C-alpha cells in the first residue's frame, strides 16, 4: 500500500469522516496484536510473506471491484470470472502447449472482452448489475467447468516452471527488492515536489514543508520495512508487486483523471451527473472493462497460488472483494470509497483468514468470524459515518 500514487495534499475533512478513517487502522492493529499474542509465528517473516501473497489476490480483486462500486453498480461474477480466466490460461499452457506469456495475454484479453460485454449489457438495457452479474456468475462458472472439463489442470506443462506458475512463487532478490523500493521512494519524492511546485505556481495553499517531508519519510520507512521483512524470508513476492502496480493504477485513475471524477459523480447522483454532461454509459462500460482485466489478473494469481485450476477456484472471492471494499468505507450505493480503503479492508480480511488458519481454527468458525467482522465494520460505518 505504500506505493500508492503521488498524493496531492489531502483535503481537510469533517471530523466525523476522520473518526471513520481511524476505525479501520485501529481494527487492523487490534487483529494483528491479538494474533501476535496467540501465535508467535504470526509475525514471522515467513508468515508475513505468505500473508502478503494471500493479500495480493484478495486486494487486487477488491481494487477492481471498487471501480464498479463507485458508480453504484456491483459485480457478483468476479469470482467465477477469475476461475474462468485462470482456467483458460491453464488449459492453453498445459493441454495446448502455449507459452505462458501468450496464454496469459489471450486470457487477459478474454477477460476485458467479457466484462466489456457485461458492462454494455447492463448499461444499454438498464438492467440492475446485481442481476446481470448473478447471471454472469452462473454462466462463467459453467463455461469455466467446460473449459477445464471439470478436471484439475496444472498451470505448468511437464512440471517445468513458467511465468504463470511463478506469479505467486517468484520472489524478487534482496538487491532487486531494495532497488525497487528506492525507485518507488524516488518517484514519490519527485511527484510530491512537482505537485508542490505546481500548487505554489498557481498560488494555492501548499502543505508545510515539514508535514510533507514527514509524510514522505514515513511512507519511505514503511516501504523499507516491507522490503526488510520480505528479504528475511525469500524477498518481495512478485504477486505483491503486481498488487501494488494495479492499486497504483486504479488509485491514479480514480483520483487524478476525469474518468475517476465521473465514477464518483455517477455513484453520488446519477441524474445530476447526466445533466452535468458526464458520459454515464461510456464511463460505466469502461469501468467494467477495466474490472475484467483485473479479474483476469486475480484469476491468474489465485490459480497459480493453488498450483492448478480446479472447479473451486474463485469460489466466494466476489464476496471477499465486496466485503473488503465495504470494510474500507465504500458505499454500495456508490459515490464513496477509495483504493486505500479497499486495501485496508482486504488486509483485514486476509489477516483474519491467515491468523485463524495459523491457529487451526475450524472452517466453520472462520466463516462465522469473517461474517461478524463484516457486519461490525458496516455497523461502525453507519454509526460513525453520519454527518
Amino acid at each position, binding site marked *: 500500500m505504500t506505493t500508492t500514487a503521488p498524493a*496531492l495534499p489531502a*483535503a*481537510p*475533512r*469533517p471530523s466525523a469522516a476522520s473518526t471513520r478513517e481511524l476505525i479501520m487502522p485501529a481494527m487492523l492493529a487490534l487483529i494483528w496484536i491479538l494474533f501476535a499474542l496467540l501465535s508467535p509465528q504470526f509475525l514471522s517473516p515467513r508468515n508475513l510473506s505468505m500473508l502478503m501473497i494471500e493479500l495480493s489476490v484478495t486486494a487486487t480483486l477488491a481494487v477492481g471491484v471498487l471501480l464498479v462500486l463507485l458508480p453504484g453498480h456491483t459485480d457478483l461474477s468476479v469470482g467465477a470470472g477469475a476461475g474462468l480466466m485462470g482456467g483458460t490460461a491453464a488449459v492453453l499452457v498445459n493441454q495446448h502447449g502455449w507459452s505462458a506469456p501468450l496464454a496469459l495475454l489471450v486470457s487477459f484479453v478474454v477477460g476485458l472482452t467479457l466484462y466489456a460485454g457485461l458492462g454494455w449489457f447492463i448499461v444499454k438495457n438498464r438492467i440492475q448489475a446485481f442481476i446481470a452479474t448473478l447471471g454472469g456468475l452462473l454462466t462463467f462458472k459453467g463455461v469455466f467447468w467446460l473449459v477445464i472439463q471439470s478436471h484439475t489442470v496444472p498451470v505448468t506443462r511437464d512440471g517445468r516452471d513458467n511465468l504463470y506458475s511463478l506469479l505467486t512463487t517468484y520472489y524478487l532478490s534482496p538487491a532487486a527488492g531494495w532497488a525497487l523500493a528506492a525507485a518507488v521512494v524516488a518517484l514519490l519524492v519527485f511527484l510530491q515536489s512537482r*505537485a508542490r511546485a*505546481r*500548487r505554489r*505556481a*498557481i*498560488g*494555492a495553499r501548499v502543505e508545510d514543508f515539514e508535514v510533507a517531508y514527514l509524510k514522505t519519510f514515513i511512507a519511505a520507512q514503511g516501504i523499507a520495512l516491507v522490503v526488510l521483512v520480505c528479504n528475511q524470508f525469500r524477498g518481495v513476492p512478485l504477486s505483491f508487486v503486481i498488487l501494488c502496480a494495479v492499486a497504483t493504477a486504479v488509485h*491514479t485513475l480514480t483520483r*487524478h*483523471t*476525469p474518468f*475517476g*471524477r*465521473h465514477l*464518483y*459523480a455517477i455513484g*453520488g*447522483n446519477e*441524474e*445530476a*451527473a*447526466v*445533466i*452535468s*454532461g*458526464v*458520459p454515464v454509459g461510456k464511463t460505466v462500460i469502461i469501468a467494467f472493462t477495466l474490472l475484467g482485466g483485473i479479474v483476469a489478473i486475480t484469476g491468474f494469481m489465485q490459480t497459480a497460488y493453488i498450483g492448478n485450476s480446479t472447479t473451486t477456484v474463485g469460489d466466494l472471492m466476489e464476496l471477499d472483494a465486496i466485503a473488503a471494499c465495504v470494510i474500507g468505507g465504500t458505499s454500495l450505493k456508490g*459515490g*464513496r470509497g477509495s483504493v486505500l480503503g479497499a486495501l485496508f479492508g482486504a488486509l483485514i480480511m486476509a489477516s483474519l483468514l491467515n491468523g485463524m488458519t495459523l491457529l487451526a481454527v475450524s472452517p466453520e468458525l472462520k466463516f462465522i468470524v469473517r461474517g461478524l467482522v463484516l457486519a461490525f465494520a458496516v455497523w461502525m460505518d453507519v454509526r460513525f459515518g453520519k*454527518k
Partner: protein
Amino acid sequence: MNPLLEARHLTKSFPGVVALRDVSFDLRAGEIHALCGENGAGKSTLIKTLSGIHPFGSYEGEILVDGKRAEFRSLRDAEAAGLAVIYQELALVEEMSVAENIFLGAERRRGPWVDWDRAYADAAELLARFRIELDPDTPVRDLGVGQKQLVEIVKALNKRSRILILDEPTAALAEHEVAILLRIVRELRATGVGCIYISHKLGEVKSLADRITVLRDGASITTLPAAEADIPTIIRHMVGREIKDLFPRNVGQAASLPGGTTGGRPVSSGSSLLQVQNLSASPDAESPARLQNISFAVAAGEVLGIGGLMGAGRSELLQHLFGAWGVRQGGEVTLGGDAYPEPTPRESIRRGLVLVTEDRKRLGLHLEQPIGFNLSLSSLDRLNPGTFLDETAEEPANRRFFDALRIKAPGLETVVGGLSGGNQQKVVLGKALMTEPQVVFLDEPTRGIDVGAKLEVYHLINELTAQGKAVVLVSSELPELMGMSDRIVMLHEGRVGGEFTRDQFNQEALLAAAMGNQSTVAG
C-alpha cells in the same frame, strides 16, 4: 350548525418566510370550496397544515372539526378524523392492482389472512357505485393518469372520509376524464362530503364550486360565493400586488464575471443564438406529445422569460432542448446557427448550451462532495485536455467562480450538502457558467432562496446578458418574470399561450395567457 372543518387565524412560518398569515377558512358539509391563488400564495401550506403534515404545534391558530378543536400530529391523525388528501403526485403503488391499492393499509381480512375475494368484490362494488369502468384486477401501472386519479379518490372514499381535499386534480387529465371526476365530486357533495378544491382552471372552479377563497402572499384575500365571482375579479384578487423595484433588470451593465467581455455594451440583439420552430415532444416514443408546436427565439444579450402554470411544460421544454427529457416528435432547433436535432446534455454543454435545473438537490448537485468537485464537474473535459486532472487549471477556475459568485463557505473543500439554499444555488450556477456557455437556461433559479441571494442571481443574469449570452428564464413568480425578462412566452398545456414584449407586460394578460385565455372563453 358547525362547519365541517374550520381554520381560525392560522399563521405558519418557515425560517425566513411567513407562508400563512392569519388565514381563516371554513368548509361546510355538502359544499365544494375552491382555493385559488398564484403559485406560492400559500395554498399548499394551508392544506398541509389542515391535514397534519405540518403538525399541531408548528403553527399558530386553531383547526376545528365539527366545532371541536383538532390537534393533528400527522396525516394519519387527520385521516382518522375523516380527512383525505388527494395530491397531484399520486400515492399509488404502480406494481399493485387497482383493488390492492384501494385497500392498501386497510386490507380486507379474514383472521390473519387477506381476504382477496372480498377485497376484489368490494373494490368492484365501489367502482360501480361511482360508475367508473375499471377492472379491479388491472395493475395500476397500466392506467392513465386520469384513471389513477379516480383510483385515488375511491381509495380515499373507502376510508369513509367526510372531508376531501383535491390538489389540482384535473391538471393532468384529458377532457372526458375531467368530466368523470367533476361528476363524482358533485355526487359526493350531494351525500354531504365537504370538498376543498384547488385548481388553476378558473372556469372549472367557477362552474363547480359553491364558494371561492383567494389566497395571496399567504393571506386570505377574500371569500366569495361562486355565483357572484366572475373570472376577471378572481384574477384581480389573485394578482393584486404592486411590483416593487426588486428586479434590477439592467441592460447596459458591465460584466465582471470570469470569462466575460469587458466592454459593458450589450451585444446588439438580432443575432438569435437559439431558435425553436414548431417543436413538439413527448415523454417517450409511445406517449402523446406534451409539448406541441412551440416556437420562439432568443438573441444574444436577451433574457427570454417562460411562464405558465404548474404542468404547462416549462421545465420539460428546457430539459428537452438541453437533451435531458423526452423524445422529439417534430420541429427544428437551431443553436448558434447550427441545426441541433439530437441533443444530449454532454453535446449541449459542448455546444455552449447549459441548464440550471429547478430541482437542485436531485438534478443539480452532488451533495456529499465538496464545492470544488461540483463546480468543475461539467468542465472537466475543457479544463483537462490530457489524460490526467490538471490541478493547475482546475483549482484557479474553481477559485474564480467561488469568489465571483461570493459563495459563503470556508473553502472549496466544504461539502455542498451543508450549505444554505442560496449558496447551493450559486454552486449550481457556477458549475453551469464555468462551461463558458452562450445560452443559459435557468429553471426557477430563485426558488427557495432568500431575498438577498435572489438579488445576487438577478445581478448575475444582468452580467450574463452584458457578456452577450442569451438567458432563458423559467419562473412561476410573475413579478420575477416580468421584472427580469426582455420578452415573455407564456405556455399553456404544452403550447405557446401568448408572447409578450416588455411594453406589453401586464399580470392579468400574462395570467390569462397561461390559463389559455379562459377569461374570454368562460367569462
